[in-house]
């Protein structure tokens, strides 16, 4: 009936004692005729008690696999796995089931006892010939490549260096600072950051260069940097913090875009050079209605104008976005300083006649009458657009972009501090255009994510990742294309596709896509699933 497998342990624990109300454990054991098993019941309440009972049970019966049957799925699996590891047994030859499932039946036909036995048999069959999983120690390079010298890249680099890792910061342009370099109020904040960056000897800065090519995997990427001079480095992780491009929305403005109608960044320059006319009208939410970056910049600039000049300022927006730290106060101070706010729904009309800008809109509040403003200058909120090189960079790192062309499709499981490819991280505006506080928090959180990954310098991997049988593989590239994590590469030498254990997240999609069934997940082999389906469906025991 079944080849001789060494003993399976059935460890039933019932701390609260309510399992006993429905099931008599002796009855279960008597029904388990077919299986070669030993069983015990523990009722100790604290985890330590469970562990001692279990270890003693394993030693006494010289078990090789065990089904842990409890009454809740909250049992701490680690206790049992560590005991198995300590006893030199395969920690994956353990199955955890919730006997409560046997009680939750609705039909009268099957008795609870048979159902409980059926659950235990199926679990035993799932683990009975689970081969041992080897472990592999992989050395991790403790250097990190940060792309982008804006505030996101700088803060990530500083936090990484603060945690003890070496950093190579590559900036595309000549100088550091990125988007916020032009903002007057942040000059000293940025200056301190850049000074700290240059002072930190763990950080090497390479400017006017870019990432040309990447190879290797998490913990050991081989990256090629091109610019003034070429260099090839080995790094443990790659952080992309290249920010975004803000473009004045010329198409929305139509033909009357001229010197009287400028973008917010150009106005920043005029603000710092005190070239501010008498009447200014700010207009946001023409584009990117779902971002608060524009409105925050608008409020800051409107307040700055009112503080130093006595020009009158009007702000037009669809929704006033104040959901950032201190947003409502900034809005209140702007109102108190005399800035007028109006909200619109349809796009306002803009006409420029002999360098006076006439803006007409229907006021959204009652009574909806048409209002016309005249201003010497119309400052328009800019569109946050992805940079030109995003597609190429995405292909290089084998990740994909979201519908607006920014990094990583919109999936909450890829937390802001992770990405679909292990070892690659996206921080700041290139992921989602956001303000400084949010960027700083995201940069520090991502740096911590990398510190947790690389600090120890090595990782002990249980090889539960997918395995490709190179004899069957015909290199049809289906798996290389479908792997969501870019964890499968073509090994030209051995003419087979190869899974990189550290990048593989053992989801098994490649195994089910492979046309010639060459790929298997060690813990979810085809035989195991078929074993569950074929004989135990009929519900017979053993």
């Amino acid at each position, binding site marked *: 009936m079944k080849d001789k497998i060494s003993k399976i342990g059935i460890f039933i624990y019932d701390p609260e004692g309510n399992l006993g109300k429905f099931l008599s454990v002796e009855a279960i054991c008597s029904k388990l005729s077919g299986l070669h098993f030993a069983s015990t019941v523990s009722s100790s309440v604290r985890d330590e008690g469970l562990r001692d009972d279990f270890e003693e049970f394993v030693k006494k019966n010289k078990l090789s696999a065990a089904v842990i049957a409890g009454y809740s799925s909250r049992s701490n699996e*680690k206790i049992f796995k560590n005991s198995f590891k300590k006893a030199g047994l395969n920690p994956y030859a353990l199955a955890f089931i919730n006997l409560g499932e046997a009680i939750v039946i609705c039909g009268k036909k099957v008795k609870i006892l048979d159902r409980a036995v059926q659950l235990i048999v199926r679990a035993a069959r799932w683990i009975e010939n689970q081969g041992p999983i080897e472990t592999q120690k992989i050395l991790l390079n403790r250097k990190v490549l940060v792309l982008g010298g804006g505030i996101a890249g700088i803060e990530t680099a500083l*936090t990484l260096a603060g*945690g003890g890792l070496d950093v190579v910061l590559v900036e595309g342009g000549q100088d550091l600072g990125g988007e916020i370099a032009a903002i007057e109020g942040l000059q000293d904040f940025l200056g301190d950051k850049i000074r700290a960056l240059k002072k930190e000897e763990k950080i090497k800065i390479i400017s006017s260069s870019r990432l040309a090519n990447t190879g290797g995997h998490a913990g050991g990427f081989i990256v090629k940097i091109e610019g003034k001079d070429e260099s090839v480095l080995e790094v443990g992780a790659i952080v992309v913090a290249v920010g975004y491009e803000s473009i004045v929305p010329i198409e929305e403005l139509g033909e009357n875009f001229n010197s009287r109608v400028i973008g917010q960044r150009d106005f920043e320059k005029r603000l710092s050079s005190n070239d501010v006319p008498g009447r200014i009208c700010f207009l946001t939410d023409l584009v990117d209605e779902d971002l608060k970056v524009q409105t925050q910049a608008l409020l800051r600039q409107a307040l700055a104008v009112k503080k130093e000049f006595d020009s009158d300022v009007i702000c037009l927006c669809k*929704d006033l976005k104040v*959901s950032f730290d201190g947003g409502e106060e900034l809005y209140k101070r702007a109102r108190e300083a005399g800035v007028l706010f109006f909200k619109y729904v349809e796009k306002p009309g803009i006409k420029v006649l002999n360098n006076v800008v006439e803006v007409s809109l229907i006021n959204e509040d009652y009574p909806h009458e048409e209002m016309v403003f005249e201003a010497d200058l119309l400052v328009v909120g800019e569109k946050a657009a992805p940079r030109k090189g995003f597609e190429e960079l995405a292909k290089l790192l084998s990740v994909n972009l*979201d519908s607006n062309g920014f990094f990583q499709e919109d999936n909450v499981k890829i937390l802001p501090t992770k990405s679909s490819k292990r070892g690659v991280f996206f921080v700041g505006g290139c992921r989602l255009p956001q303000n400084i506080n949010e960027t700083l928090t995201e940069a*520090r959180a991502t740096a*911590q994510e990398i510190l947790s990954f690389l600090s120890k310098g090595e990782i002990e991997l249980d090889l539960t990742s997918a395995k490709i049988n190179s004899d069957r593989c015909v290199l049809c590239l289906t798996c290389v294309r479908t792997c969501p994590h870019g964890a499968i590469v073509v090994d030209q030498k051995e003419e087979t596709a190869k899974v990189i254990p550290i990048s593989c997240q053992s989801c098994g999609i490649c195994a089910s896509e492979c046309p010639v069934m060459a790929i298997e997940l060690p813990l979810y082999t085809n035989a195991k699933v078929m074993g569950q389906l074929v004989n135990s469906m009929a519900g017979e025991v053993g």
Partner: protein
Amino acid sequence: MSSRNVAVIGGGIAGISAAIALADMGSLVYIIERDTQTGGHAAGFACKATEKCNKCSACVADELILKVFQYPEIRILTGSEVMSFSGKPDNFRLQISRAAKEESLFEEVELKVGAMVVATGFMPFDAEAKKEYGYKKYKNVITALDLERSLRLTGKIAKPTDGSTPKKIAFFQCVGSRDESIGKGYCSKVCCPYALRLSKLIKSETPESDITIFYMDVQPAGKGFYELRKSCEGLGIRFVRNLPSKVYGYVNSDFLQVKSINADTGEVILDEFDLIVLSVGLSPQNDAKFLADTLGIDQDGHGFYRAKGELLNCSSNPGIFLAGACQGPKSIEESMAHGKAAAAEVGKMLRK
């Protein structure tokens, strides 16, 4: 001797994120949780997916809350509170009072830690303070948190009075936020996103329901928010841009009426609703002052703990760090990131 132990006060998602990151870096972490189990408010949120996921991150919080049990380096002390502390950074002594399981007396515990992370989270605004909305007076006026909990536990929405499915539902935004009159002059960031996601869920579960959202300005949040708002409008959810001042109703009847101005004609219209959901904002914990004095950390004008300028995780008292909504309103995603960032700051301090 800089002890690598760290105490995290508060077992919500921010505290747990910080604890897990610190455990990864080799520290021994104590989580001091007042409640009988960890998870905080995020453990009670419902999944708000309709035909696709609407990015509310409730499931990410669920998975994180389960993950903390797999870390032997993290000792979770439930039912415990901080009484006092002494010493200086790298060498704090923390006195904790802990409810002992057996005789339910309080036992005194002292922890020697190198640093502390305050992650005590927020308290939902007590909607009763807005008397004119009649929360608790009229049974069918509920808060968004009540709605979340009933969706998570029962999977459906029901009128508290008779349990039937409500037809006309109203969402009131900015209840306890952006409201100078009750000293809440800040935006709680999360109410517009969760209101839109809840209304989209209700509208797609019960298409015949008629939902109106009374709002001032719709605040965006995270990726793909424009798409979420457009899909709400597409489903026929009405957006009315004024906040009603009062709810008219009778104590034990289903009748709830709201006055608002018709934006086109200008005259006052009377709307009747079966259910009114108050999108309550995030307020500081009511014992925030007590903990601030105990730990010697400053509070900002609204009662949240003040961060030192751009060091958003450092409190005014060196060696004590901040994580999550106790420092200011944050979404689930931001709280987790803020928790990890706090762990990075602690790591930097312990390394010196």
